[in-house]
C-alpha cells in the first residue's frame, strides 16, 4: 500500500538510492574521523564520568551474560549491575560499554576515553547519514547534503558529538523515529520499523516521551484535512489508519522494558521512580543575562535566545527562510485542498497530503517549547533541544536547494564549468561561517557563542553561562605538567574524580598529579568560572590568604578557569 507517492515528493524530493546511501556513509565516516581526532582535546565532563562508571558496570554484566547467562539474568545481578545511574535508560551506556569491552579485547582505540565515547560519535555520524537521506527524500539530495553539513557544523552539537553522553544519541533516535513514522504514512512496512526505533529511542533518553504526542497531533491534523479533502471530491491520498503510531504503542513499551534489565523487577515501582525523577528533576544553576537561575520560574526566552546566540547566523537565517517558505507553501496548498474542487486542484502544483510540514514543525518546536515552560529546568543549556536541530538543518537545506534551483536562469550566460560549480561554491560560502565558528569553538564548545552574542566576550558582557560540567580542565594539562614535574595534587572544583582519572589513563596527565577534594591540602586549586562558582574562589582566597591566581585559562580573552597555588605547598 503506497497511497501518497506523488504527494510525498512534491517538494523536489525523491527516494534515496544506493548512491545516496554511499554519500551518507561517507558523511558518517568523515564526521566520526573528525570527532575521533579531536576528542582528545576535550576532557571528560562530569556526566560523562558518571556514564563511564555505569558503562563499566554494564560491561561486567555483558561479560557475565556471555559466561554465565542464568546468573546474569537473576534479579541480584541486574540490580547490582544496573543500579548505578538507573535514572537514565541504558541503551547509550550499553554502547559505551561495548566500546570499552572492544578496547579491552582488541585495543582498537588510541585512548581509553575514546572507547567509551565512540558510541556517541557513531550516533553523531549516523545522524548525518539520516539527515542526508531524510533531506533527499523531502527536498532532494542538494538539500539533504546541505542539511547534513549544516548540522555537522553547529558548534554546540559538534562539542556534544564527542561525548559519551545521551544528547546526540537521542537526537539521532528522535530523528530516526520521525523518519520512520513519516515513511509509515505512505508505506505500512515502515510501521513496525517505527515501533522498533521508538522502543530504542525510549531506551536512549526520556526526550523520546514527547514523540507520540507530536505524531498524534500531526496525525489528527492529517486525518482532518484528508477527510475534508475527500469530502470535497479529492481522491484518497493517505491512509487514515495511523499504522506507525499503532506500532509505536505496541512495540515501543516491550522493547523498552525488555532492553532495560533494571526494570525487569519491581517494574511498576521503578518505572514510577524513573518518571518521577525527570518530572521533578533537581534544579541546578544556570546564568542567563547576568541572573543565576536555580529555581522556577525560568525565563521563557531561554531556548530561543540561546539558539540565536549559539547557532551560526547564516545557518539560522537559512533555516528560518526555509521554514517561512514551507509555511507559505503549506498555507497555499491547504487553501487549494480545502476550497477548490478536485478538478481545479489538479491544475495546481501537487499537494503534500501527508502534511509533512506540520510534522517537521512539531519536531522542531516541541523540544524548544518544552524548555520554554517556566517550570522546566534549564541546566543543560542547548543540549536539551538538540532534537530540534536536524529539522532546522532540513529547513536550511530546503532554502539552499530552492535558491540554487531558482538562481539557475541567472547562470545561463556562464560556462558549463561555472554553472556546475555554482552550488558547491555557494554552499561552501554559506557553510563557511559555521565551519570557522565550529573550528574556533574547539575545545571550548560549551563556552562558545556566535557573533550574534558578540562572540565569547560579548556573551560574557551579557552575563551568559560560561561553561558547565567542568570539562575544560583538560586544557590545564600543559600547565600542570610544567608546574608539577615531580607530581602533586589539584583541587578539581567541578570536575569529578572519574574524569580526572581518565586524563591519566588516557596518558595526557602524569599519574602522580592527583585529584584532591580539599583546597587546603591540595598543591593547586582550580575554579571553573561560572557565576555561582565565585563561592569556590572565596574559599580559596580565605584558605590561601590571597586572591591572586597563578594562571588563568582564557578563551577569546574570557576567563574559563583560574588556577591558584597553595602558599603552603612544598611543590
Amino acid at each position, binding site marked *: 500500500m503506497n497511497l501518497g507517492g506523488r504527494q510525498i515528493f512534491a517538494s523536489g524530493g525523491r527516494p534515496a538510492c544506493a548512491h545516496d546511501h554511499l554519500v551518507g556513509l561517507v558523511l558518517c565516516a568523515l564526521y566520526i574521523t573528525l570527532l575521533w581526532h579531536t576528542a582528545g582535546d576535550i576532557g571528560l565532563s562530569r556526566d560523562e564520568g558518571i556514564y563511564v562508571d555505569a558503562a563499566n558496570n554494564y560491561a561486567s554484566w555483558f561479560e557475565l551474560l556471555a559466561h554465565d547467562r542464568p546468573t546474569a539474568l537473576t534479579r541480584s545481578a541486574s540490580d547490582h549491575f544496573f543500579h548505578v545511574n538507573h535514572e537514565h535508560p541504558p541503551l547509550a551506556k550499553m554502547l559505551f560499554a561495548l566500546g570499552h569491552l572492544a578496547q579491552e579485547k582488541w585495543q582498537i582505540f588510541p585512548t581509553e576515553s575514546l572507547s567509551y565515547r565512540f558510541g556517541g560519535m557513531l550516533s553523531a555520524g549516523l545522524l548525518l547519514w539520516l539527515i542526508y537521506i531524510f533531506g533527499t527524500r523531502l527536498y532532494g539530495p542538494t538539500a539533504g547534503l546541505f542539511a547534513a553539513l549544516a548540522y555537522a557544523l553547529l558548534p554546540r552539537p559538534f562539542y556534544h558529538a564527542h561525548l559519551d553522553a545521551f544528547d546526540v544519541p537521542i537526537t539521532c533516535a528522535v530523528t530516526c523515529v520521525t523518519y520512520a513514522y513519516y515513511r509509515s504514512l505512505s508505506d505500512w512496512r515502515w510501521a513496525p520499523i517505527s515501533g522498533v526505533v521508538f522502543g530504542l529511542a525510549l531506551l536512549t533518553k526520556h526526550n523520546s516521551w514527547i514523540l507520540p504526542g507530536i505524531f498524534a497531533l500531526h496525525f489528527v491534523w492529517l486525518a482532518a484535512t484528508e477527510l475534508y479533502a475527500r469530502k470535497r471530491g479529492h481522491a484518497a491520498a493517505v491512509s487514515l489508519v495511523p499504522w506507525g503510531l499503532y506500532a509505536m504503542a505496541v512495540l515501543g513499551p516491550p522493547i523498552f522494558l525488555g532492553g532495560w534489565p533494571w526494570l525487569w523487577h519491581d517494574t511498576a515501582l521503578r518505572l514510577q521512580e524513573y518518571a518521577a525523577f525527570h518530572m521533578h528533576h533537581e534544579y541546578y544553576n544556570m546564568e542567563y543575562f547576568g541572573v543565576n537561575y536555580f529555581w522556577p520560574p525560568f525565563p521563557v526566552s531561554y531556548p530561543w535566545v540561546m539558539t540565536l546566540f549559539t547557532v551560526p547566523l547564516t545557518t539560522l537565517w537559512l533555516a528560518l527562510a526555509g521554514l517561512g517558505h514551507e509555511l*507559505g507553501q503549506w498555507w497555499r496548498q491547504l487553501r487549494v485542498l480545502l476550497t477548490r474542487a478536485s478538478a481545479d486542484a489538479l491544475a495546481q502544483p501537487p499537494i503534500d497530503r501527508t502534511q509533512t510540514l506540520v510534522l517537521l514543525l512539531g519536531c522542531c518546536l516541541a523540544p524548544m517549547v518544552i524548555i520554554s515552560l517556566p517550570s522546566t529546568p534549564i541546566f543543560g543549556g542547548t543540549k536539551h533541544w538538540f532534537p530540534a536541530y536536524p529539522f532546522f538543518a532540513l529547513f536550511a537545506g530546503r532554502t539552499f536547494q530552492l535558491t540554487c534551483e531558482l538562481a539557475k536562469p541567472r547562470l545561463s550566460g556562464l560556462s558549463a564549468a561555472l554553472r556546475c560549480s555554482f552550488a558547491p561554491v555557494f554552499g561552501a560560502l554559506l557553510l563557511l561561517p559555521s565551519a570557522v565558528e565550529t573550528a574556533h569553538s574547539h575545545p571550548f564548545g560549551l563556552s562558545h557563542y*556566535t557573533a550574534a552574542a558578540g562572540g565569547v566576550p560579548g556573551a560574557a558582557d551579557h552575563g551568559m553561562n560560561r561553561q558547565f560540567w567542568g570539562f575544560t580542565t583538560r586544557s590545564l594539562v600543559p600547565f600542570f605538567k610544567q608546574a608539577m614535574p615531580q607530581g602533586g595534587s589539584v583541587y578539581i572544583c567541578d570536575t569529578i574524580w572519574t574524569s580526572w582519572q581518565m586524563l591519566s589513563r588516557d596518558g595526557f596527565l602524569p599519574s602522580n598529579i592527583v585529584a584532591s577534594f580539599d583546597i*587546603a591540602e591540595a598543591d593547586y586549586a582550580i575554579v571553573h568560572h561560572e557565576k555561582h562558582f565565585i563561592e569556590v574562589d*572565596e*574559599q580559596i582566597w580565605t584558605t590561601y590568604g*590571597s586572591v*591572586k591566581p597563578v594562571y588563568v585559562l582564557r578563551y577569546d580573552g574570557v576567563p574559563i578557569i583560574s588556577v591558584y597555588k597553595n602558599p603552603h605547598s612544598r611543590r
Partner: protein
Amino acid sequence: MRFLGSRAWLCLLVLLPLGELGAHALIVSRVAPDADFRAAADFVRKQLHARDLITVAPAWADPILRLHLGDRIPLSMAGRSDDARYERMWVLSTRGALPVDASKRAPELQRDFGRVRVLRYALGKSPVLFDFTDTLLRAHATIEERGHVRDCPLHRGGVPHGGGLGRGVLFPLAERFDCDPRRPWLVVGPVVTEDLEITPRHCIWQHAAGDDPISVTWSDVPLGSELVFYAGLYYEHERMRDHGPVRADIFIDGERRGGMVHEDGDGWKRLVIATSPQAPGARGEVRVEVRAHEPDRRSFCWSATTRQTTSQGVP
C-alpha cells in the same frame, strides 16, 4: 517563492556569511593579549598609593586583573561594599568598558597599552575613619545564653577542610572568636562570602545563635559623623527566601543607635546611622548584636565603617 531566486536574495546570501565571518574576525581581533595586561599592570603597580583601588572593566576580566595585580588586592578590596575607603581608582579597561562604580568625571590619567587602557580617577579624600572588619581582632566577642553572658575566646590557626559549592565559608577560620567549639560556624571572624547577588563580600561572620545575641564590641572607635553598616547572608542561605529574619542592633556607648532587620531577599543591605555629628573628634564604644529567632542558616555577615562626611550621599 520567486524571491528566493531574486538578485536581492542572492546578494543577501552572499553578504550574510561574509558579514558573519567579518564579525567573528573583528571579535577575535579585539581580544587583549596577556602582554597588554602585563604592561598595564606594571604601569599601575609602580604608581600605587595606599588608598588606591584597583579594578577592571568589564567585570568578568577580574581573574585576569588578579593574575597580574592580585598581590596588591587584599580581601578587603576584592570584597568591598563600596569605594569609600579609596581616594583613587585605577581601572584596567578593555573594549571601552567602564566599571559600574567609575566616577562620572573624566579620568585624571589615561594611557593605552595595546588593547588595554589604564584609567585613573580621583575619588576625593576618603571619609573613612575606622573599618570594623580590619580591626576585628582588637574587639571583644561574647555570647549570651539564657541570660548568662560569656566570652568567645580569640583563637588562631586550624586548617579548613573540603571546599566546593554549597559549603559556603570553610571552617575553622584562621582567626576567629570561638563561641561554641561544638558548633564551628558559631564564631565571629573575618571572611569573604557571597551575597544574594553572588558578589564577594569581605565581612565579619557573626552567625546568629538564637533569640539571645552574639555580640562584638570595639572600644575607642573614632565615631565621625556616621556609621555605615552593610549586611547580608551567604547566598545559598538566603536565595530560597524561606528562612526567618535576622536582627542586628548597633549600640554606641551602650545606647542603641540603630539596627536592621534583615529578611531573606534583602541582599546586601545598607544602613547609615548618625553618630556624633556635633563632636567631630569623638570616640566611643561600638557594639553590634546579632540574633535570630530561628538561627538555622542565619549566616549573618556584615561590614561597617565610621565616616566623617559633609553630605548624606554615598561616597
